[in-house]
Each structure stands twice: as structure tokens, then as C-alpha cells.
């Protein structure tokens, strides 16, 4: 009995060490999304391309799609823009949320760098951003046909990230069929 007690500190050390070691590989800036598996928040905002037309969350339903939060002031958005264009060419539906931006600049940007978005919601005040829990652009969400949020990625979308997103989307497409 005495002998076994002597090993207690070692066991505590191993346990602590394991958790600290795991902590090294966790990225603290990556937050779990509070909105996961919840319906897309309600909104009523103008379209970027046709400012007189109001859009709601119903406009995003119908099929699995990506929702990309972007702005012209965000350098990483520019980085991922080319890749988003490629995805759109492959037939992926991407909705854009133009987040806290100037509409004129945003329209100019889409003209210059091409427009991968099926629709762009104009969220000038960032109110939809707050409802979504956006804390920095770019962010990309996967929503299913019913408009439920299934995945969230913070940061640029590139080939590696897309693999992950595609997996989620394929699952959704499979589930719907």
C-alpha cells in the first residue's frame, strides 16, 4: 500500500503533462462556433448588387451552400478571392456577406476581381455579423438546404480548407438525396 502511494506524484505528473502537451497543439484563436447546427439568424438587409432589393435568410435556403463573410478592407479576403472564384466555376453555390464595408468599394472590387457570389448581402452595420458571431473577416460557413449552419471556418479558404468544407457539403448532399 505504502509503495503504491509513492507513485501518486508520478501519475499526477503524467496526467498534467498530457494535458499541457495537448494544449500546445490547440489554437486558442480558433473558437468553437456557438451557432453550429442552428438555423441561420434572421435578417433583412439589402442586396449589394441591387440595393433596392431586400434579402432575408430565406434567400439562402434551397441547397447546401457556402456563406462567405468578406470586406474590401480585409487583406485575407483578397487572398482567398481567387480560390472562391475557382469554386464558383466548379458549380459551388457561394453567398457573400459584405461585412462593414463601403458598398461602392465592394461593387468596384467585384467588378475588378470577378464575382464568385450567387448573392451578396450588404451588412454595412455589421448587425448580421454580430448575430452570426463573426469576429473577423473572412469567415466561411457551410449551410444546408434548410439554412442550418453546419460548419464554420475562420480565416482564408484554400485548397486544404476546401477539402474539409467539401466533405461537409458532400455529406449534406448525400443526406438530402
Amino acid at each position, binding site marked *: 500500500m505504502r509503495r503504491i502511494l509513492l507513485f501518486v506524484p508520478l501519475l499526477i505528473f503524467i496526467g498534467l503533462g498530457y494535458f499541457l502537451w495537448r494544449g500546445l497543439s490547440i489554437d486558442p484563436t480558433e473558437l468553437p462556433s*456557438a451557432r453550429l447546427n442552428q438555423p441561420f439568424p434572421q435578417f433583412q438587409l439589402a442586396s449589394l448588387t441591387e440595393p433596392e432589393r431586400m434579402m432575408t435568410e430565406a434567400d439562402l435556403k434551397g441547397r447546401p451552400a457556402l456563406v462567405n463573410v468578406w470586406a474590401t478592407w480585409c487583406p485575407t479576403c483578397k487572398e482567398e478571392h481567387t480560390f472562391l472564384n475557382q469554386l464558383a466555376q466548379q458549380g459551388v453555390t457561394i453567398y457573400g456577406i459584405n461585412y*462593414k464595408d463601403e458598398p461602392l468599394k465592394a461593387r468596384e472590387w467585384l467588378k475588378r476581381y470577378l464575382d464568385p457570389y450567387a448573392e451578396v448581402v450588404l451588412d454595412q452595420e455589421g448587425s448580421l455579423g454580430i448575430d452570426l*458571431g*463573426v469576429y473577423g473577416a473572412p469567415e466561411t460557413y457551410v449551410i444546408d438546404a434548410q439554412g442550418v449552419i453546419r460548419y464554420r471556418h475562420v480565416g482564408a479558404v484554400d485548397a486544404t480548407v476546401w477539402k474539409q468544407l467539401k466533405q461537409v457539403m458532400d455529406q449534406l448532399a448525400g443526406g438530402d438525396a
Partner: protein
Amino acid sequence: MRPWLHSFFLGSALLLAAATAQAAIEAYEFDDEATEERFQQLTEELRCPKCQNNNIADSNSPIASDLRREVYRMLNQGASDDEVVDFMVTRYGEFVLYRPRVSEMTWILWYGPFVLLGIGAVVVLLISRRRRRSDTADAKPGLDAAERERLNQLLEQDKKR
């Protein structure tokens, strides 16, 4: 350096300092002091999601300023503190609370230290009790009759000298 140039630089440095110090403070007007106090407390207890080691009261980031505005708007509409906190948690998760709520997930956080303290107290108690017992156990055997006899003899011899 010429005196006027000196004061010019000093003046602009002061201005600059004032400008940066003010960056995080918007002029919010409150109906009464109680609301203002609640605003202060809430913004100090909510963590900025972007700049994780700041609360939203201290942070200069745009998202923190948006969230301050949101807290202000809600308080003015008569929302309770809990409602404001719920609003933030449904959007940004438990993460934004600098003072986490007591739930199954945070039990270890809230009660863990007391459990550890309790374990420590028990260990200290056990050790001290064991030591006391072994002390009294050591004292008991003492000298047997023969040894006592010999001790007395030695003492007697000492006295005679």
C-alpha cells in the same frame, strides 16, 4: 533644440497620447448612473472575441466597439444583465465570459480549487496525526528495570565524587 520647437513636439506628443487614450472610449450617454455602472461592469466582464486578452471595455478593435454599442443599445431598451450576457453567449459562446457561469462544464473550474484545498487539508491532517502517534510510541518504551538500575548507579557514583 529651440524652446518653441521643443514645446511644439511636447504639445503634439501630448495630443497624440490623448487621441490614442480616447480611441477606446465612445461618448455614451446614460439615463441614470445605475445603468452606466452596469454598462461598465458588463463591458469589463465580456471578453473581446478577436483580441482574447482584452475585455470589450479596453479593446480598440472594431468588433469590441460594435459589441459595446450593442450592450449600450440593449441596456437602453431595458434589458437585464442576464439578457445581455445571453445575447453574447448565443453568438460568441461561453468563451466571451470572463466570469464563467456555473454549469456542469465549469464545475471543475469553480469547485476544483476547493476540492484540492480539501485534499490538501486531509493529507496534512493525516500526516500530523501519524507523526504525533509515532512520537508517543517512541516515548513509551523508555528504559527497562535493569537499565534504570544502572542509570541510578551511575548517578550515585557521580554524586560521590
